[in-house]
């Protein structure tokens, strides 16, 4: 790392996350204007976007090579009042909460009190959504049966394909003009809507070009004043680049990175989309530029790495927009989930690992930043060297890169009806979500608390935490004669709550489609331009809605415990177990010990337990998969938690697997913390028993003590372990290489462990930034000493 990069990296690491009212003021100013009242919704959204980009402060940091900030400075975080209006109370909470805080100064508070809140009160998308949902939905949401992703943040959840590394916005404007020409007002009843959407896209394209030009202006000004001759030349070059991209297609390596970065800032300024934005298959996109320039002698590996490092820091300057309430609980992190994909296969199916892949791995290792997240796609066609190189980074223990199975991802996408080519151009984004890059809108709609639903089943439709009846009356489990009756009751409850959730999402989708179209994002994802339709209204080639199941490991252990202890061994009666859980196991120490230590558990390659995981999976899958959404696509499932397993645990009482009330549930498809006692190979066997290929992603967290990766044999074995999991169609695996002892020390002396990074769930985070419950949960995950 050279001095320049070190300085920029330090600046990024030490920047204080704080709320900037700039965007809120600009968007409010525009919405108040006469112009805003005179145009259609999509055009209004595009003009608002333009107004922000034409007036926001241009920030160029000392020494940086890639320019463009969403806020006025690194980690200056804007708000999006048209989507979520923060109250003064919310702002205070953001400022003062112990973890994932954002500083809010008095001026911002005043602006909110005097300008933002008076204008937006009751009008934000969040208000509209909540007003449109019925009592059943609100009851289930309040009980923690599910969460709702779109209540505070706009959909997004998508990734750039290769298109934008070959085109500029002037090219897109031509495509828009052609689509306009094709409009048929005589026969197409939607022609008007299409025209308005295309107009909006055209305005958005102009806006981003103007935004880049404003950077060029500023860079030229800085160059004129610059004393250092080298930097002066650099600034002039950067100005020239900003005059060229993103209007025109990039032609050099530097242009390609700057081109993407303007696009990235555009997407996260237009709205506050989930998972920010993502360049996707970066090694594939960048290779042609790198090869061309290194052959011509205009670029060296060293310069390419410096540019990439500068690019990496830009991601790190951009924390996720502030989240509050349930959304803060389900995704309690600054990380905004831009997940760089490396490796995999090319469009023609051949091995895609290339020189750029290894250069990017070097950058990931050297930068050691939380953002962007990184992953490798591993196909059977990729060499072991690629995995082993990655294992050397994993070994350093910052949870990155995570490891994905390309061959599984392709089959998952094919199973959902994508073409083979679109599938091969895909990958995973966010935490682990499968997507066709550049062609798909794949929205996560919310986490689904399978354990809570089972708790409600055990209480015949009543939530024991509140005493409120929010589910169906599916029978008193004490009267069930067989385990199958219990499973059938659970199936009915899952159906009931999935119906509520899906109905809710079909309403929310329409509110968003009519209220917050995203003409800028629509430019980037095929086939929105050709279809004349917004990304949020089914314009993409593929439109998928996901519901994310949570608690598979916990619920498997609960079902296994009931089957084993009540129905098969008859050691306890249902009444006894219900009494014990109602008492939070107080006075039931021996029983609890038996439930924890002598009852079969998921994660040990024990079919007795693992078959319950399959049962749960099939119930969830059959209830959700294939149901239509409002955008021409379908609902699908995936299995990932972010931090929702802590929240979902906090609303769930003690459970018959021995878990105490309000403690975290298992995460992803990982075993319950500490329940896996036979090492990583047994975990992988258990996890592979569900059918990953019918999902849109599963998340498996695997703990590893550093000593298991000390020598070459350890690294080779890790490569083989990954290959084994993927041979069994596992979707994803990530590793926490740290000892429980280290984590315990870090909890006691956080000041000595400021740099300690751990894998949470689909992303890495500073251990110090995690809530105590989550810290404890991760310590328990890593506890088993031998493995």
């Amino acid at each position: 790392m050279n001095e320049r990069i070190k300085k920029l990296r330090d600046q990024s690491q030490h920047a204080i996350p704080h709320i900037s009212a700039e965007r809120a003021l600009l968007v409010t100013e525009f919405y108040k204007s006469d112009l805003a009242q005179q145009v259609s919704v999509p055009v209004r959204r595009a003009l608002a976007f333009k107004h922000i980009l034409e007036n926001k402060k241009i920030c160029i940091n000392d020494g940086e090579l890639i320019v463009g900030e969403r806020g006025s400075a690194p980690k200056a975080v804007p708000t999006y009042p048209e989507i979520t209006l923060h109250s003064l109370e919310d702002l205070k909470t953001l400022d003062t909460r112990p973890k994932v805080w954002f500083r809010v100064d008095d001026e911002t508070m005043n602006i909110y009190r005097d300008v933002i809140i008076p204008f937006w009160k009751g009008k934000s998308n969040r208000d509209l959504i909540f007003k449109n949902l019925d009592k059943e939905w609100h009851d289930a949401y309040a009980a923690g049966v599910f969460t709702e992703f779109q209540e505070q943040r706009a959909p997004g959840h998508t990734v750039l394909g290769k298109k934008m590394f070959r085109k500029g916005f002037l090219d897109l404007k031509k495509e828009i003009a052609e689509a306009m020409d094709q409009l048929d007002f005589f026969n197409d009843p939607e022609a008007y809507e299409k025209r308005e959407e295309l107009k909006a896209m055209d305005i958005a394209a102009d806006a981003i070009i103007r935004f880049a030009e404003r950077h060029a202006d500023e860079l030229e000004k800085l160059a004129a004043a610059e004393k250092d001759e080298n930097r002066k030349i650099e600034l002039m070059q950067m100005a020239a680049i900003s005059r060229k991209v993103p209007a025109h297609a990039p032609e050099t390596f530097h242009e390609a990175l700057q081109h993407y970065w303007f696009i990235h800032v555009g997407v996260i300024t237009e709205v506050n989309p989930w998972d920010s934005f993502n360049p996707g298959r970066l090694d594939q996109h960048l290779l042609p530029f790198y090869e061309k320039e290194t052959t011509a002698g205009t670029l060296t590996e060293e310069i390419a790495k410096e540019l990439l490092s500068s690019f990496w820091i830009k991601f790190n300057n951009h924390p996720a927009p502030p989240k509050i309430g349930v959304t803060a609980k389900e995704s309690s992190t600054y990380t905004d989930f831009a997940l760089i994909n490396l490796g995999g296969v090319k469009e023609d199916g051949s091995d895609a690992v290339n020189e750029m892949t290894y250069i990017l791995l070097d950058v990931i290792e050297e930068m050691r930043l939380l953002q962007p997240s990184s992953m490798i796609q591993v196909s059977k066609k990729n060499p072991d060297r690629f995995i082993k190189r990655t294992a050397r980074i994993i070994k350093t223990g910052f949870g990155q890169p995570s490891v994905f199975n390309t061959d599984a991802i392709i089959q998952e996408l094919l199973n959902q009806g994508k073409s083979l080519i679109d599938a091969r151009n895909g990958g995973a984004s966010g935490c682990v979500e499968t997507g066709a890059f550049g062609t798909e809108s794949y929205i996560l709609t919310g986490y689904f608390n399978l354990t809570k639903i089972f708790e409600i089943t055990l209480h015949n439709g009543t939530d024991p935490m509140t005493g409120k009846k929010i589910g169906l009356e599916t029978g008193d489990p004490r009267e069930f004669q067989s385990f199958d009756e219990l499973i059938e009751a659970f199936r009915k409850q899952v159906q009931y709550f999935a119906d509520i959730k899906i109905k809710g999402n079909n309403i929310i989708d329409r509110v968003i489609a009519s209220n917050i179209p995203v003409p800028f994002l629509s430019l980037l994802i095929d086939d929105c331009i050709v279809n004349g339709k917004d990304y949020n209204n089914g314009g993409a080639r593929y439109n998928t809605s996901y519901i994310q199941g949570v608690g598979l490991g916990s619920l498997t252990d609960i079902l296994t415990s009931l089957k084993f202890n009540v129905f098969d061994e008859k050691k306890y009666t249902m009444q006894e177990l219900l009494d014990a859980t109602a008492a939070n196991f107080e006075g039931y120490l021996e029983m609890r010990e038996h439930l924890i230590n002598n009852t079969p558990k998921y994660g040990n390659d024990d079919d007795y337990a693992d078959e319950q995981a399959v049962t749960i999976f099939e119930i969830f899958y059959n209830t959700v998969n294939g149901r239509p959404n409002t955008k021409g696509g379908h609902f699908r499932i995936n299995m990932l938690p972010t931090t929702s397993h802590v929240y979902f645990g906090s609303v769930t009482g003690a459970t018959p697997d021995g878990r105490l009330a309000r403690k975290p549930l298992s995460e992803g498809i990982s075993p319950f913390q500490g329940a896996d006692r036979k090492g990583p190979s047994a975990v992988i066997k258990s996890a592979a028993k569900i059918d990953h290929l019918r999902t849109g992603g599963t998340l498996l967290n695997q703990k590893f003590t550093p000593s298991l990766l000390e020598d070459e044999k350890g690294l080779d074995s890790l490569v083989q372990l990954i290959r084994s999991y993927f041979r069994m169609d596992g979707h994803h695996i990530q590793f926490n290489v740290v000892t429980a002892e280290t984590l315990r020390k870090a909890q006691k002396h956080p000041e000595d462990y400021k740099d300690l990074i751990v894998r949470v769930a689909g992303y890495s985070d500073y251990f110090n930034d995690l809530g105590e419950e989550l810290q404890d949960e991760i310590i328990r995950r890593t506890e088993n000493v031998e493995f």
Partner: protein
Amino acid sequence: MKGIIFDIKHYAIHDGPGIRQTIFMKGCPLGCWWCHNPESRSKEIISYTKEEKIDGQIVEKEETVGCQYTTDELMKIIEKDTVFFEESGGGVTFSGGEPLLQFDFLLEMLKTCKKRDINTCVDTTGFTDPEKLKAIAPYTDLFLFDLKHMDDKEHIEYTGVSNRKILDNLKMLDEMGKQVQIRYPLIPGMNDDESNLLRMLGFLNRLKHKYPVSILPYHKIGSHKYKRFGLEYKMNGTKEPDKEHVETIKKMFENAGFEVTVGG
């Protein structure tokens, strides 16, 4: 036929090639002072009172060491890991105790494994009837063979048995042309003096084949078990060897032309 097993370790990566499953068979004729599995010595299933900690509270319960398996039952467990064996070139390792103490069961297991194309290792003290060793040899892909001390008196002192049979058995395997990996437990103050090491090198050099050596540095992990099983732990003054010391000894073997690994 049934065998008594006291532990099964999955994802064993230091007990032979690839990712392995290690089957720990109960019973051992030796009583090495540094043994970290003292519960493995007796051939019988034993029970003891275990204290389970549940969130700081203690529950006492009866636990047993050792479990009976038929060959079919054990094969089922072994074959669960087939995918890992195949991906890594691994297989099953029979360890102990001394696996040859349950000779009939071991032989049947090894034969069955070979019938099913599973790579086999036997981790042995070498203290066994040579005929038995000869009998399992055709079904054993690799012997992990312990070499503890060259001086017979010291060997008897620290392990309870003479090393003559052990050294003869190693020579026999060498004559037979079997694959062998030498395992040398490095115990400070007991078998790490220069004279023992030189004798060891001399002996290994006189064998027909040059075998890889793995140094297993002494660790105290098993010491707490002695009290639990009513055994005397004689290693109280011994410290775990430091890295430099291990490295010096590693160099010594390497300079004599041996391929050396540390820790398996």
